[in-house]
């Protein structure tokens, strides 16, 4: 199923959420984790992930450090103090939003009122 149009607005929160669970992660690891947790239903492309990572870093929500791993540089991201606070807010907001969407999408319940003469 194609989820890209739904996922676009939530990547930021997903990245922040994953980083609250693990101290530091690199780009591939983040996309692999999203794939794994979504039962391989959601795949973050390079184009969807990296501009968001750079924006979060520029906004001071993430900090990055490089390490040489297997002959190549690997950039690890971790949450800053501000990033941890924003992560909590965003995850809570997204949770509420999903609940609202669920409510909207539920079929209307049969109301007793219509039987009232």
């Amino acid at each position: 199923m194609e989820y890209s149009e739904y996922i676009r607005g939530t990547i930021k929160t997903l990245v922040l959420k994953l980083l609250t669970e693990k101290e530091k992660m690199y780009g591939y690891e983040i996309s692999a984790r999203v794939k794994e947790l979504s039962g391989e239903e959601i795949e973050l492309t390079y184009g969807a992930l990296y501009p968001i990572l750079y924006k979060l870093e520029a906004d001071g929500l993430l900090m990055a450090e490089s390490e040489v791993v297997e002959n190549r540089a690997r950039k690890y991201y971790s949450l800053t103090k501000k990033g941890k606070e924003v992560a909590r807010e965003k995850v809570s907001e997204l949770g509420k939003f999903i609940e609202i969407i669920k409510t909207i999408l539920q079929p209307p319940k049969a109301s007793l009122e219509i039987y009232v003469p």
Partner: protein
Amino acid sequence: MTQEEIDRVRQLLTGMGLSDPSLQKELIDHVCCDVENYMAQGMGFEEAFEKTKNDIPKNQFRQIQKETMEVLNKKIRLTTVFTYLSFFMLVLATAFKLMRFPGAGHLLMASFVGLAITLLSGLVTHPLIRERGRGRVALFALSVSVILFLTSLCFQLLHLPGMSFLRGFSVISSILILSGYAVYSYLFPVKVERHLIMDYIRKESQGIEKSLIILFVFGTSLKLWQNDFISVVFFMMLFSFGSLFYFICTWQYYQMKHAESISKPGALVISIIAYAMIMLPSMVNYIDVPLRILLVWGAYTLVAATVAVYYFRHSSENLRVVLGFLSLLVAVLCGANLLMKSVWAGTAVGEFYLGMVYSPFVYVGLFIALILFFKKPAFRALVLMSLAMLVHTYHLPGI
């Protein structure tokens, strides 16, 4: 994956238009992980590489680069505001000087103050500095030394006492701090790669080089138009900040695992000596002719010869022979200058050769080489700095 296989991935990304060094490094790792993932499923490298390549949509990397740059450029920081303000005043000071309006000196000083504030605000507002302290002390010490250097330039313009002390202190402290840091970076390359200063260099290198080019253009315009003293200030800023920046850039070489280990101590020793030789003559009241000539032109000859050796022996560039040969020519030019201004100074032979070194042919040739090979970092740095030094020293006694 082997180094050759990683290089294949690098070439693929470069071919797909991904040129930003920081983004490229990161995506090389990501694509390598994708290739390794396929290899773990039993494919050979070639098959895994082709499969990964086919998975990448057309223009994907170009698009990521564009989007990422847009994201970064949107972020207007206090530091950026001060940088633009300082350069605006620098332009205004140059224009005032050229039009012979009063107040050019004050504007120039205001731009130096702006630059000092830029440095300070960068140190205070940078989120990484607040969050993490790796290399924070060295960065602060270096910034103080640069601010003192800028203050000494203001003192020089105002003919205030204490200029010599300020200049001497800033130059000696910057040599000591950077030499120590260079040795540390050579001994612990992995640690230093994560230091704030390397992070800063990686992120801001394009902006720093643009500033150096602007200083070169202003300095050259003032020199050509009026041969004014202010051009000296522009060139002094270019030589001191340029050599500081390029010196730190060389530390990235120690972090390259595939670089030949024998070339690393050589690079360390030469870069420390060359930096000290370039910076010491700016202590104008302590270093005089002929020592100044020996230090400046000796440093340029040494650096140019080292760049030539790098291209001939250690580089994997396609045009390495051409670049090596051109760097060698720059070394010969600077070496000739050293000899003619010291050993054969005032003789007919000396005058004849100096006429050749400072001929329009050399300036135009170097300028064309700079434009043609602008994308080659080591060569670009060498030609920019030596061309600036040749413009600065044209008809300038004592150097």
